[in-house]
């Protein structure tokens, strides 16, 4: 962009940044709103999932217990249930089909066995009669992988158990469900801990209470399943109505009520209140406990007692719930950043498209300012930029016209200046021309006179030769005058011998110097007259003649009169050092000698343009013209590059 002062940020850059910032700002606001909304939705989803999972678990649990009740009621409807009391009441033989009591017991045991086989969680099914303080009539139980029907001698009386006492109190068709408690054998909690629920229902025979049917179902597998099938980020708990754990990822914390430990949900979450109800349903609520979020579903499993429930809950950290929305946020901001970047790039691209024509104009003005060929202008553009381009183009053309005029008038000035110096020289020339003219004249006249006196042919020939010689002398002088006076401003640069330049000076000035007894010398230092340099020969001759003429004017009335030109090579330049015997130029004059119209000569003697024009010519040659102030005599240095390479 040429030698301009540093420009700071370009317009393209500014517009890009502005447009980009606006786009970025807009997308940031919209993006943030959307992301925040979406993040809320994602959080809501995560929370809903938590609720859903909890409800599923609760349903499973409740349905397991419902099935248990159902199975109990189903078994009561099977034939052996009535067959056994019928046989008992008829001395051991059923009056209807003559089956004896053992046959009925065996049939019932088969039914029990099949059911236990089908239901992996069923531990024990028993038929207990009122007789004998609740003596077991039929008892089938799971024993490891086997299913065993107990022989009569192993049957016990269960009249004191809670389930027995409860079951005999309820109506036909109802099912008593015990609390879940660890299985005890002979009063001791059995190992491994087996949580057990008992479902018991009364059996009536001929309108009178006869006994009960009891199914023991174990929960360990159900709870294990519940824990195992829970997604990793969720922690499942099941507690009873008091808050003791029935299911806990850490099994040691379960069954505090049976093992006399006090691991309760209230311990983990002090703000926990099982009496609490939810907004949506009474049996469901979400608890924010510290860093955790816990969803609780109160699972009412006993249709006969409305206050019995398991609290099924899934806990997760708030962070976990948020992770989806946080990830969404990250992803969204990443995309947003990408969008901002893309919008910046697009804005930059559009701005440069938009500003491109302006840049062209700028480039053109820069070219114009630096004198280069003006590159293309967006003249066809229909907008303001096109208008600007067109008015710039007009301006440029006007400028070119002016420049052309200037060049023409400059050329005129140059030429006029040269003609002026030619005029100065013409005086000297007159003498030079006059002498041969006079010689020709005398020779011709003498021949005329002598012819009357019978002149020899040889004499005539000699005279004619004299005339020819003198005519040639005059022609040479005229020729060099004509050559030098021609307008050479637009001459081509050609390889020119140094000698050709000095010859031009000699031709024009030698006679003048001779007549004034000025000692004029051209000395070569390290180069010869055959060395070449690229220049407009006549222009440079004019510069040198101008320097020499100035020197002539300075020394012609001095006592010591000499002018010398020392020609030497300095690096890539050839120097013409013109020194004369005159004293050095005073500093105040020195500062102005290259100014146009400055002259120390009398009016009419100098145009005051010589040195300024000379310096202009030299500048066009990439050369230098200056005064060597170190010298005690007046000393001008003209340095010209040897080659034309610019």
């Amino acid at each position, binding site marked *: 962009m040429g030698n301009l002062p540093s420009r700071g940020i370009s317009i393209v850059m500014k517009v890009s940044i502005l447009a980009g910032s606006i786009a970025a700002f807009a997308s940031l606001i919209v993006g943030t709103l959307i992301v925040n909304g979406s993040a809320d939705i994602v959080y809501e989803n995560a929370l809903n999932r938590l609720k859903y999972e909890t409800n599923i678990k609760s349903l499973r649990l409740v349905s397991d217990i419902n099935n248990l009740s159902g199975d109990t009621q189903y078994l009561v409807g099977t034939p052996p249930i009535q067959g056994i009391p019928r046989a008992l009441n008829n001395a051991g033989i059923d009056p209807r089909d003559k089956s004896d009591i053992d046959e009925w017991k065996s049939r019932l045991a088969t039914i029990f066995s099949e059911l236990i086989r089908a239901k992996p969680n069923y531990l024990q099914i028993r038929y207990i009669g009122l007789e004998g303080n609740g003596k077991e009539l039929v008892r089938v139980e799971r024993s490891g992988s086997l299913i065993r029907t107990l022989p009569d001698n192993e049957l016990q009386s269960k009249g004191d158990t809670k389930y027995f006492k409860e079951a005999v109190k309820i109506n036909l068709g109802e099912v008593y469900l015990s609390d879940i408690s660890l299985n005890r054998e002979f009063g001791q909690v059995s190992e491994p801990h087996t949580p057990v629920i008992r479902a018991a229902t009364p059996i009536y025979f001929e309108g009178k209470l006869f006994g009960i049917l009891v199914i023991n179902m174990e929960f360990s597998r159900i709870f294990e399943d519940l824990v195992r099938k829970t997604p990793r980020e969720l922690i499942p708990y099941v507690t009873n109505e008091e808050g003791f754990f029935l299911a806990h990822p850490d099994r040691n914390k379960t069954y505090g009520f049976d093992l006399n430990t006090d691991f309760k949900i209230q311990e983990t979450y002090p703000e926990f209140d099982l009496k609490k109800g939810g907004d949506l349903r009474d049996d469901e609520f979400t608890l924010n406990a510290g860093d955790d979020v816990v969803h609780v579903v109160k699972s009412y499993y006993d249709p006969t007692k409305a206050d019995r429930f398991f609290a099924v809950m899934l806990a997760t950290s708030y962070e976990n719930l948020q992770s989806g929305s946080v990830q969404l946020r990250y992803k969204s901001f990443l995309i947003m950043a990408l969008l901002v970047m893309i919008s910046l790039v697009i804005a930059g691209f559009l701005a440069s498209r938009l500003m491109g024509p302006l840049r062209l104009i700028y480039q053109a003005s820069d070219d114009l300012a630096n004198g280069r060929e003006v590159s293309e202008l967006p003249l066809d553009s229909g907008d303001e930029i096109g208008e600007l381009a067109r008015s710039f183009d007009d301006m440029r053309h006007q400028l070119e016209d002016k420049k052309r005029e200037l060049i023409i008038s400059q050329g005129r000035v140059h030429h006029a200046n040269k003609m002026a110096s030619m005029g100065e020289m013409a*005086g000297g020339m007159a*003498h030079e021309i006059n002498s041969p003219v006079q010689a020709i004249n005398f020779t011709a006249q*003498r021949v005329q*006179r002598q012819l009357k006196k019978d002149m020899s042919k040889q004499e005539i020939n000699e005279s004619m030769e004299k005339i020819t010689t003198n005519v040639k002398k005059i022609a040479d002088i005229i020729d060099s005058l004509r050559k030098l006076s021609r307008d050479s401003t637009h001459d081509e640069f050609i390889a020119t011998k140094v000698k050709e330049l000095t010859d031009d000076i000699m031709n024009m000035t030698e006679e003048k110097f001779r007549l004034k*007894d000025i000692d004029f010398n051209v000395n070569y230092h390290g180069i010869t007259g055959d060395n070449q340099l690229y220049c407009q020969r006549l222009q440079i001759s004019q510069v040198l003649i101008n320097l020499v003429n100035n020197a002539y004017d300075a020394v012609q009335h001095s006592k010591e009169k000499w002018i010398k030109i020392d020609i030497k090579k300095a690096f890539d330049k050839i120097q013409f050092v013109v020194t004369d015997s005159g004293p050095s130029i005073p500093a105040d004059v020195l500062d102005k000698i290259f100014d146009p119209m400055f002259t120390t000569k009398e009016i009419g003697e100098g145009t005051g343009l010589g040195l300024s024009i000379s310096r202009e010519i030299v500048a066009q040659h990439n050369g230098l013209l200056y005064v060597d102030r170190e010298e005690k005599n007046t000393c001008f240095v003209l340095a010209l590059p040897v080659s034309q390479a610019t």
Partner: protein
Amino acid sequence: MAANQKKILVVEDDDSLRDMLVIIFEDEDYYVAAASNGEQALQMLDEEYFDLLATDLYMPKVNGFELSIQCQKKHPETKIILFSGGGREITATHGKGDVQFQDEKIKIDMFIKKPCDLTELLGVIEKMLG
């Protein structure tokens, strides 16, 4: 050299013209000596008497105007003809004797503006030397 032969000193820096003047004057039976500049001419004037000094104006070292002044001092009887093509520095009229050069004025016998007619010149000289 015949006793009554008149002596002319030709002073001219242009070799060709000087030679021609010598030949022309010799054709007319004058005794002719020649110098190519004023300095040389002054030396010759010291050594010899000349009836006529025919000198060019513009010459190196000592010019014709200076030479004329010196000659008038040395030999007031010697006639002087000054040739010149004219110029800014000189004010004089062809055929007359008042010459102003730069700031000085002298009166000589004849100023002749170059180029001049041979017959006229010879006529002038013949009249001058009687």
